[in-house]
């Protein structure tokens, strides 16, 4: 279904914010990851706009460091865990919790 909308994503990494808004990366692996993101966006006619936020204001910072208890304590409104399917090329690199 064609949405044709641009969605906002927040990150505390200025590099990926710049790369996502620019459209290409100098690093080959990062550019490959960007290609997969853009191919997925093209199938659904969507665009992403990245916004930089400091680490202290990024509510996903605790999750990325594995401190799930502190995250659930600090943000009780975010209470539902989901386990989306992991892409095949990431199955040897990531594990779903």
């Amino acid at each position, binding site marked *: 279904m064609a949405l044709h909308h641009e969605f*906002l994503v927040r*990150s505390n990494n200025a590099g990926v914010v710049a790369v996502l808004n620019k459209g290409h990366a100098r690093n080959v692996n*990062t550019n490959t*990851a960007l290609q997969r993101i853009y191919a997925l966006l093209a199938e659904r*006619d969507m665009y992403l706009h990245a916004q930089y936020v400091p680490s202290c204001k990024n*509510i996903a*910072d605790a999750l990325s460091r594995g401190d*799930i208890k502190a995250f659930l304590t600090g943000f009780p409104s975010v209470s539902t865990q989901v386990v989306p399917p992991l892409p095949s090329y990431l199955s040897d690199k990531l594990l779903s*919790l």
Partner: protein
Amino acid sequence: MHLLPQTDVTSVSTGPTTQPACSGPIAAMSTLAASAVTPPMEQPAARIETDPRRIITPLIPSRIEELLVRLGILDEWKHILISIRNGFDVGILSIPSSTNLFRQPQISTRSPPHNRCIHRLRAICGPLFQRFYPLRTRGFNWTFLYSATGGNPQTKLHQISYHTGSLVPKGQPYDPINQRRDKPRLFPHQLGLVQRNSNTDSLAPRRLLGSHLQHRSSISDCATGNLTTGLSLHTLERINLCRSSPHVWPVIKCWCLRFGRRHGSSHLSESRFWPNKEMGQRFLCCLFTRPIMDRTGLCLPDSAHWCAMEPTENTSACILPTLHRFRLGPSREVSSTTGRQTQQITHNLIALAKPESRHTQKEAQSLHGRLVHASCIFRLIKPFLRSLIFFAESFHSSHARCFLPRNVLADLHQTDNIIRISPSRVPLRKPDPVNINWWGDASTSFGIGVVIDSYWAVWHWCPGFTVGPGREFDIGWAEAIAVKLGLITALHLRRFLLAEYRAASS
């Protein structure tokens, strides 16, 4: 014979006289003449002799008087109007009895015109006056106005401005379509000339009409200025929209008043172009234009005296042709026709890149340039163009012909696929992003965490897989994977459809 008696009166009487008596019978005499012509006995009508020192013009005095009244200069030009009715005096009417010698400034007894200098910033008016004063310009002839009032074109200028980047290209204008740089001594194809009163009805559509484009400089007394509004406006010749691109900088020549090198540059740097109306949903970028003086010699400077200046400053006040650079800003939307044409052209170009064919460096660069141009419309192909430029830069000789690597072919195939499935009607202006409370982060120590609205997901790095500096995968890659996983999570939760529904319902 009968004789009258002699008198003493010496005066002559003019009373009735008697005819002298014939002394004998008149003999009948006739002469035959074959070519005898009877002369006209009537006197021709006397013609009114005009004064050769007066000239009668065929102009209609009533219309001229109406025009002078409309312009408000009837009092100053009244003698012209009288002369048009009664004739202009030429030559001298009487021999001068004496000779009067006047100094040059005393010859012109007419008061100099009042000049207005309009600037968008109130604070600039003072420095402008100080800049004029060292030139011995008569300051009382100048009024420095502040033009930033509501509803004027200046206000509209800021509302439709899209471009925020560099205003003037550093180098020569580069044409990505023809892969060349415009030579500075040649006028580009988009050169326009200043013209007045362009007839908008007779111009063809699909073109940016001259009346749609106006130029305003900071000086009201521009060569084609409109003195009634205080703004120096003049329209430009039509510009072909088809050849206009966000990358191409057309050059427009206009005639502006120049106050010498430094002062002219400072004034012209404040000049602006703006569109008069919307044309094909495409606006002109409202940029500061830095003038480039015409050194090509195609249009010689036309010097003109400036009444408000001292005679010694005539050389510093002249009208020169000036080249302004501007470019059209990105349109709000690419029409379906343009999108389909770009799709077809790009597809044909990529179809030429076959695994069995060999290409030169110039062909690879040309293909990359065209795809970069297409990426202005189809933004999602940008990450797929990196391998092509790496391939183009890997040539050691410009005459060499190389096969396309597999990764380049794969990227070109993916580029063609993205362009093919993309809609032909593409908005170029980025819409406001929809906030679905999407947060993502990655760390080298643990893994990736994603939060979308009230849902969260977390992934841990596999044992033995490390991310960090000096490794194959760095933190930038991990953050990009976090975005990818967040995208998968949002699609899994159908967040995008929900946001679309909310946007549509609101």
